[in-house]
């Protein structure tokens, strides 16, 4: 039985532990050889490191390759004819329902994404910057700690803040306790995945239960909103009114859409914000430049997502025999594509191991690529920019010299457990 009141910080660490890769801190050196010598390698590297596999979530023994070069990774993600994402329905899709966007293709995907897209457009989201995002980060999360002069950037800000932003924008009631409980449930679904064959059956039962609990909590909120009249700019109100080529959603479908978005909506932003600040602290010259010129914040974010992407792996399945880097991959084989490796591919990025916010923009796969490009990307960018700006406004911000330095860890879903910072209060 899954603990419904599972605490947020504990669930976050459970997800980090799943992808820890047996204490892997710096996976990037090993990708040099893999990329050059075996660009399309037999087996899933995630399995070798004991992490959950997207390419074979039920551990059926499906043939699988790992793809390491940028051109090949981009091709797999962009070519939706030769590469299908339907296999994702065996993993998270089996818990999150049959409208999980990342697992859909063709017309079903086009219609559902078309229905959602208007709410997620940068132009439509801008209004939330002033009404929700900036006030939350500055007033609710940073102001109460200001006089203290120190905090754990992960526990005090990067973990709770995106959750409160996303739930506020979705239109959930402003009840911090409820919001954190829902967020805990959403993380429980992710934490229930496993790379351990002995735990697979129980893990799937737990994930299914967590998903059902979350659905049971969301559905009455949707029904109440519909009864109230569906006014407002929030996502739930938008979904109650939305129509795309004749597609309209009932309460059950809206509950499924909302539930599908929750596990994707928060802790990816947590890790991305934390990784960005860690890499800036490690490069004091760049930190000083960004602090002095805030137009550089988006560049720093993009380069941080290249340098150390959170979503390091995605998976697809070949719909026919396909060739990548002169290796023929048989129809039905899954590809576990390494964004972490692709982002250090010297064919695309000069001096790839250097963090350089001035490098020419090349195809960045950090939010995915192709038709499944992260729908929430504009939300994440607004959230991260607002948080970085608020943090850089803290006088003399630095890492806390009396606390252990932050350590980004994992084979994928990379992030630090804590980032202790201090400033002049």
């Amino acid at each position, binding site marked *: 039985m899954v603990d419904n009141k599972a605490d947020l910080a504990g669930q976050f660490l459970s997800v980090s532990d799943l992808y820890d890769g047996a204490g892997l801190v710096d996976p990037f050196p090993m990708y040099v050889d893999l990329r050059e010598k075996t660009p399309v390698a037999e087996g899933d590297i995630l399995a070798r490191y004991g992490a959950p596999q997207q390419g074979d979530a039920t551990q059926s023994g499906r043939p699988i390759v790992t793809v390491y070069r940028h051109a090949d990774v981009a091709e797999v993600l962009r070519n939706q004819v030769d590469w299908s994402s339907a296999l994702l329905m065996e993993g998270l899709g089996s818990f999150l329902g049959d409208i999980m966007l990342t697992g859909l293709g063709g017309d079903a995907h086009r219609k559902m994404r078309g229905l959602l897209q208007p709410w997620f*457009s940068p132009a439509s989201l*801008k209004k939330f910057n002033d009404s929700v995002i900036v006030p939350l980060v500055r007033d609710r999360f940073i102001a109460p700690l200001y006089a203290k002069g120190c905090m754990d950037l992960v526990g005090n800000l990067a973990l709770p803040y995106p959750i409160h932003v996303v739930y506020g924008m979705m239109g959930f009631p402003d009840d911090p306790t409820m919001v954190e409980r829902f967020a805990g449930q959403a993380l429980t679904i992710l934490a229930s995945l496993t790379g351990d064959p002995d735990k697979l059956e129980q893990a799937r039962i737990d994930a299914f239960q967590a998903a059902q609990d979350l659905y049971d909590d969301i559905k009455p909120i949707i029904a109440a909103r519909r009864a109230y009249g569906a006014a407002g700019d929030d996502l739930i109100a938008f979904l109650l009114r939305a129509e795309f080529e004749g597609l309209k959603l009932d309460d059950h479908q809206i509950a499924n859409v909302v539930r599908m978005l929750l596990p994707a909506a928060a802790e990816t932003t947590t890790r991305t914000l934390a990784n960005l600040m860690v890499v800036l602290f490690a490069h004091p010259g760049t930190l000083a430049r960004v602090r002095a010129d805030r137009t550089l914040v988006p560049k720093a974010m993009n380069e941080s997502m290249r340098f150390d992407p959170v979503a390091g792996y995605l998976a697809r399945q070949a719909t026919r025999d396909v060739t990548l880097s002169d290796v023929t991959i048989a129809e039905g084989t899954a590809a576990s594509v390494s964004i972490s490796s692709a982002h250090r591919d010297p064919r695309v990025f000069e001096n790839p191991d250097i963090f350089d916010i001035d490098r020419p923009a090349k195809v960045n796969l950090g939010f995915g690529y192709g*038709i499944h*490009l992260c729908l929430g990307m*504009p939300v994440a960018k607004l959230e991260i920019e607002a948080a970085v700006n608020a943090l850089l406004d803290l006088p003399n911000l630095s890492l806390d010299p009396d606390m252990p330095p932050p350590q980004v860890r994992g084979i994928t879903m990379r992030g630090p457990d804590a980032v202790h910072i201090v400033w002049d209060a």
Partner: protein
Amino acid sequence: MTELNVITRLGVSRTITAQSGLSVMEALRDNGMDELLALCGGCCSCATCHVHVDPASFDALPTMTEDENDLLDSSSHRNDYSRLSCQMQIDDMPAGMTVTIAQED
């Protein structure tokens, strides 16, 4: 090979040579126009390859699909001559076309 005139976000004009068979977006990227993000890679799923086409050429282009039209609606910088450059083919382009890279949303 066809010539395409480009005006960057900073207002700098350039003429690039574009290969047959490519989309305008791919031609811009191949010529190092990195400010054109084209985040989804050209499958009409974002609006980050948004350009404004010169009015004379605009009408000579094949009409846009509903999907492209919907995505352009999501940009604050849409005008009467907006297109997604991934949805225009070099081979369909009228001679002497100029595209201005739209401001980022």
